[in-house]
């Protein structure tokens, strides 16, 4: 369950990692929500990595994972962390630092 969408690296390119816990309802919702947000607001300038923590339990400690699903924005800076199923669009956009008007 690893899906990588590669785009050209640039300062404006969004590098996102979504950590999910297996095929739980929250995970499934989060994946579909973030994908639609990316497609809608960040078309062609994002890099989304979806990681199932069950498959890589060590990463949970490394990334200080507690609440899942968790989305980590690595780029552009400043980084940020978003938890939940990404259903609250306003908060997702705010967390990602995307201006809604764009």
């Amino acid at each position, binding site marked *: 369950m690893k899906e990588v969408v590669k785009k050209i690296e640039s300062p404006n390119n969004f590098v996102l990692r979504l950590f999910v816990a297996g095929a*739980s309802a929250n995970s499934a*919702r989060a994946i579909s929500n973030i994908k639609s947000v990316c497609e809608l607001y960040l078309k062609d300038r994002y890099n989304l990595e979806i990681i199932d923590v069950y498959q890589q339990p060590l990463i949970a400690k490394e990334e200080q994972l*507690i609440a899942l699903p968790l989305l980590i924005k690595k780029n552009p800076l400043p980084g940020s962390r978003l938890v939940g199923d990404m259903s609250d669009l306003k908060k997702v956009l705010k967390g990602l630092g995307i201006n809604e008007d764009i």
Partner: protein
Amino acid sequence: MDFNEKNKLNLGLLPKTPTGILGLDDITGGGLPKGRPTLICGGTGSGKTLMSLEFIVNGATKYDEPGVFMAFEEKAEELIMNVASLGFDLAALVESKKVSLDYVYIDPNAIEETGQYDLEGVFIRLGYAIDQIGAKRVVLDTVENLFSDLTNETTIRAELRRLFQWLKEKGVTAIITGEKGDKLLTRRGLEEYVSDCVIFLDHRIINKISTRLLRIVKYRGSTHGTNEYPFLIDSDGISVLPITSLNMDNVASSERISTGITGLDSMLGGQGFFRGSSILISGTAGTGKTNIAATFASSICDKGEKCIYFSFEESANQLIRNMTSIGLDLQKHIDADLLEIITSRPTMFGLEMHLVDMHKKISEIKPKAVIIDPITNLVTVGSVNDVKAMLIRLIDFLQKEQITVLFTALTINNSVTEQTYEVISSLVDAWLLVRDIEFNGERNRGVCVMKSRGMKHSNQIREFIITDDGLDLVEVYLGSDGVLTGSAREAQILKELTGDVLKGYQKTRKDREISRKKQILDATILTLKAKFESAEEELNRTYTEELLTRDIQEKNRKEITHIRGSSPKKNNEDNEPNIET
């Protein structure tokens, strides 16, 4: 302990996991409920983290049960450093895969909540750590911190409930710590979810002195001690003090041990105290209580037995120096590892703490005798009743171990003391009272045995003198002026000596008189004898003369008769006197 016996019965019902914490397993009857979560709650700095960490370390080192420590407050490196001071080498345990440390951290400022979530991350991390080292023990140190990091309380509650259930299913013995709340035991009411065993730690300040206390609020399916038990955190970790007088079946030894003072021994039936008994020496300031105590300690060490001297007044060096003035060399006993002088300020910690501390030291050193000098200083820390309660426990413990204990008690005023210390004196087996005897412009010391259970003892007040060579007791003089001590006693001795000389002189004079009288008598007897002899001689002479006279007269008469009537031829034959009988 009584609990251990009960525990044997309980084992069939509820398996337990020993904590390895000194005393805690006694109170809980064997440890924490095996395979279930236990809640340890308490205020800041009450020792929650330390207690749970000791549980993990002991599991790894003593019981071969690896453990996972999940910290929500302190970083792993900080934890390792914090417990290093207690002698726990956490880093080595982590290295050898006996312990797994995981620091869980969330920065609430850098997180945005965008909908529903769960704490699956914690489950995954914990599950992974447990499986990696085969953990049997788990600690979640202040899991409540999640509440401040995440805002969705309903979710967290549901998730924690699920977490504890999951831990039970995993079969690990878990400790969850929680901060003390205002009304509830914990701030977030964690006790609702963890219902098997709840331990409450308290850190109380009474009279400006802090005491750590532990109480088992709840222990489902097991008997447990219900009291508040004091506990101590020192360089060896936590020790809980469970000693309460449960039974009174202590052994009573009839072995006697010397007090180190010959005169005092003779007051106590000639042999001194019973082994394992408790002795109180009370007296006003400067009456030599410490001297008696130190002499006793020294005599114990002379026999090659160990002794602990708890001094609450003088430092060890001070005590050693002061005792050299009475010819007591304590240093050599310390060098020989027989004597241990432990000094602490009474106000350093609470009464219970002192008790725990003493308990620990005694268990460690295993002495034959213990001296506490003076117990009255402890009253500054607690009330007389508290001190009594503490002493009951201490005496109980010491008697069980057959350790002789000697307390000294400072009394302020002779008449009041005997009242105030009734509470304490009723506990002890022997009570010596050292008192001032003021007389003749001097202050002298008198010692008497107020009580001494189970032995014939003197009812006399003896004068107690401190010399360069130690302590000694002398008979006091009871004269028409009352008890005589010090120079008055010396004067009395001199007076009596004078009397003796005079009497001796008189005696010899009388002897001479008698011998003279005898001489006179003898002389008189001689004279009388001589007189008698001369009288006898005289009488004899008269008698012979009379006899002769009569013979001659008879003869003459016969002669005349003869001449007149018979023939003259027969003259020759009859010439000789013829005495007829």
